[in-house]
């Protein structure tokens, strides 16, 4: 009984904490945050222009993930429009919900998101991969094709129950590179064949339990039991995608922009 009461009290605390999450706050940003985010967008556009690329993988540092030995938190595919402007397509999780949607935004919007550090990272796919990607990135029906709205930040890379942002980006990449990869299962099979390896996060049972109870956008039930119960949570991270693109020759080295 006492335990139940304590749990209930603790749950109430979590609910409040979950709602007070950094990105869920709708408070006006500071003048400096806008200035620095827009400046990073401007610097990024300039560097991308100079790169000669038509399509790049672009990442931001939205959170401090040092604890997991990760540097970047979120990525998308940026491409150059006919008028020379850069647009980025990426998947965003609506604050406080278990749903995600695909957006096409400017570089300004991409960085105006309460960054942990004003730093961007770019990997340029090889020219052949870029050529296959470019028409798809302009085609909304193709962008939606492999999107699963059910969102979990730590979605298992080899399941289709949920889908997080970085996972959508690489599955869509697979679809553009391999004509036979037209479903999520097929895209994941191609990623495995190409040697993609997700990051293994060591998250204890208590943290997992806390995550599921406090946030709509965290779930662990898509992970295989043998991994889940040994505190190994595999998911698609920016750092693992960058390493794979470089290792496989599908992309070049990471370029940092500040």
């Amino acid at each position, binding site marked *: 009984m006492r335990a139940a009461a304590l749990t209930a009290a603790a749950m109430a605390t979590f609910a409040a904490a979950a709602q007070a999450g950094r990105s869920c706050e709708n*408070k006006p940003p500071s003048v400096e945050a806008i200035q620095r985010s827009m400046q990073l967008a401007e610097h990024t556009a300039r560097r991308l222009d100079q790169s000669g690329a038509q399509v790049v993988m672009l990442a931001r540092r939205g959170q401090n993930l040092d604890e997991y030995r990760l540097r970047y938190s979120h990525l998308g595919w940026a491409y150059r429009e006919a008028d020379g402007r850069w647009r980025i397509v990426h998947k965003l999780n609506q604050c406080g919900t278990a749903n995600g949607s695909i957006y096409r935004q400017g570089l300004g919007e991409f960085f105006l998101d309460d960054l942990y550090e004003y730093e961007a990272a770019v990997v340029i796919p090889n020219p052949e991969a870029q050529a296959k990607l470019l028409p798809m990135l302009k085609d909304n029906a193709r962008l939606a094709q492999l999107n699963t709205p059910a969102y979990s930040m730590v979605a298992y890379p080899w399941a289709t129950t949920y889908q997080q942002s970085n996972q959508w980006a690489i599955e869509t990449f697979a679809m553009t590179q391999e004509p036979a990869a037209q479903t999520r299962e097929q895209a994941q099979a191609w990623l495995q064949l190409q040697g993609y390896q997700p990051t293994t996060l060591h998250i204890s049972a*208590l943290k997992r339990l806390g*995550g599921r109870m406090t946030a709509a956008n965290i779930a662990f039930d898509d992970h295989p039991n043998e991994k889940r119960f040994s505190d190994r949570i595999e998911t698609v991270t920016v750092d693992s995608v960058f390493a794979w693109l470089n290792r496989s020759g599908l992309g070049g080295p990471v370029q940092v922009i500040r």
Partner: protein
Amino acid sequence: MNKHSIRRTLASVTVAALLTINVATAKAQSEVSAVSVLSALPIAVSVAAPVMILSAGVSLSVVAVEASATGAVWVLERASDGARATVKLSAQAAGGLSVAAGTVVVVTAVSTGWVLSTASRAIAFIPNEIGTALLYNERVTR
């Protein structure tokens, strides 16, 4: 209470206590890619003014605020000479912002445009040509 249930109760208490501590870490596993903060910040879609009144450090008074389905229109007046500008803001976020007539806003010039703020909190961004090229927002899937 038998031995088994005592152990279970203690375990539950421990879980409850630890969960409170672990909330922050659980959330930090990867980014909560929430809809951009920018959506909370009105972006000017047009500015009409007989003279250029946007420059660094200038104080402007909001003399009129009109909300409509397509966005909001603010009429700003420069204190020094009464010159006015009409700023049309995107509908996206203008509704969530409470700016009333009489509010004094400060202009900060940045390389991509001008930031309007009150007490160092930004309330609107007016992009220049460079800034306009960097801004776009389209929801592709529902």
